[in-house]
């Protein structure tokens, strides 16, 4: 089976600091890959390289078998992104922000798609509200709506459940699992909420100081490190790296 995403030998440094070293992995339909690592491990940099907003020194990225660096624009139509750390322009209403991005992603029938996603992420009643009036959890849900506008085959999510109330963490997790399992989409996500993450993901990529130190299905990686839960794995592998 052809992978939806193939990453080969990505190397990135900022100045003299090596941030990512020889990163290679593949993503297939129905994969939900959790990128796990402490702060500064290179998780966000890797996501931004996969989105083309940071240029790597070395390496290749293929989406759907096509070279990302040669066909960036057409391939990004099929890749959605949302991050807890980036909000949408505050001075536009929820609906206006989504209309702008539906043009950028050339969404067919934008009104219908926006309404459908606003209903799904329970933001319909906020559509005429200026984005600055949203809570951080609502802003994250708005980001998720934006990320899903073009019905992408791959979703890249940076801390998608941070700032959400517990019931929404569960709800968003269900939506993501549903998208992968029933619709065959692939998802990459980073999160520090290990308990919730373990319920969603089926593959792991462990990053430490820019290097992959573990990659595979949950079962394979748990077996390799002789653990049975993600939290145990995290502390076993990263120990007190953040302390």
């Amino acid at each position, binding site marked *: 089976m052809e992978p939806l995403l193939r990453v080969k030998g990505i190397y990135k440094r900022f100045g003299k600091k090596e941030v990512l070293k020889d990163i290679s992995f593949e993503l297939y339909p129905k994969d939900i890959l959790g990128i796990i690592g402490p702060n500064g491990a290179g998780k966000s940099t890797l996501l*931004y390289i996969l*989105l083309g907003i940071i*240029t790597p020194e070395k390496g290749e990225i293929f989406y759907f078998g096509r070279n990302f660096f040669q066909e960036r624009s057409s391939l990004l139509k099929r890749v959605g992104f949302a991050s807890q750390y980036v909000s949408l*322009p505050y*001075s*536009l209403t929820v609906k206006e922000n989504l209309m702008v991005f539906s043009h*950028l992603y050339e969404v067919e029938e934008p009104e219908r798609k926006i309404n459908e996603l606003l209903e799904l992420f329970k933001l319909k009643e906020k559509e005429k509200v200026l984005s600055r009036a949203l809570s951080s959890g609502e802003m994250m849900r708005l980001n998720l709506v934006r990320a899903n506008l073009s019905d992408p085959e791959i979703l890249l999510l940076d801390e998608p459940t941070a700032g959400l109330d517990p019931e929404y963490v569960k709800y968003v997790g269900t939506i993501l699992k549903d998208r992968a399992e029933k619709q065959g989409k692939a998802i990459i996500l980073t999160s520090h909420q290990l308990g919730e993450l373990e319920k969603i993901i089926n593959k792991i990529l462990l990053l430490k100081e820019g290097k992959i130190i573990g990659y595979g299905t949950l079962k394979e990686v748990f077996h390799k490190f002789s653990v049975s839960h993600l939290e145990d794995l995290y502390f076993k592998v990263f120990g007190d790296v953040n302390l």
Partner: protein
Amino acid sequence: MLTFSPRRVKGILLRHLYLLKHSLSRWIDLLYWPTVDLLLWGFITLYLQKDLGGINMPSLFLGALIFWNILIRAQQGLAVGFLEDIWARNLLHLFVSPLTIFEYLLGLVLYSLFKATLASGIMTVLSCLLFDFNFLSQGVLVFYLTFGLILFAWSIGLITMAFILYLGQEAEILAWALALLFLPFSAVFYPVSALPVTFQKISTLVPPSYFFETFRTLLLFKKISFNLLYKGYLLTFLYLLISSLCFFYAFSLAKKEGKLVKIGE
């Protein structure tokens, strides 16, 4: 592979029009200042007209003022439009979408044309009504001069954006200051010959000085100096080429250094 989508360009235009729709301060900036400028200069020149019989001072000054406003609005449409996306921390979202940098610039260019048209339109109507000066009565030359000044404005806008990408948000003051740096040498309200010799030499390198001299020659001597117009355009294209190269270099460097992710933080 080079791709282009008019719909994505429309998306960028929409983003700035929505912003304008909700912002009283941006409307004031767009409409209030050109009106105040026009009234102030109109009445000053009417007063000066009494002492300088032969020359039509309001036409000279108001025409120059409208052209200068077109330049400023076009330049700021590009540079401040870019800053709006930095302030809103929206660059990341824009450039992880299928939007290309050419489409983004084209969207800002259209927005800058909208702003320049609106501001100059108001000034033209007011100068007709209050000072009996019809800016458009100078015929096709108005179009040539306007187009040349707008191209120059975009070159200044691009170089400003390059500085912001290269130096970070500290350089945002250039969005307002850089065009003004050219003002003394552009011979907007006085002829180049009125400048000290050293300044005259500098003004030969400043494209608007040729456009404003062309305008003055038309009003005072009723003739079009195609020589001046030609030199102005030649120099403008050189500015546009250099500023485009600087911008694309700064943009690619920003992607390499991860600045597009962090700018605005």
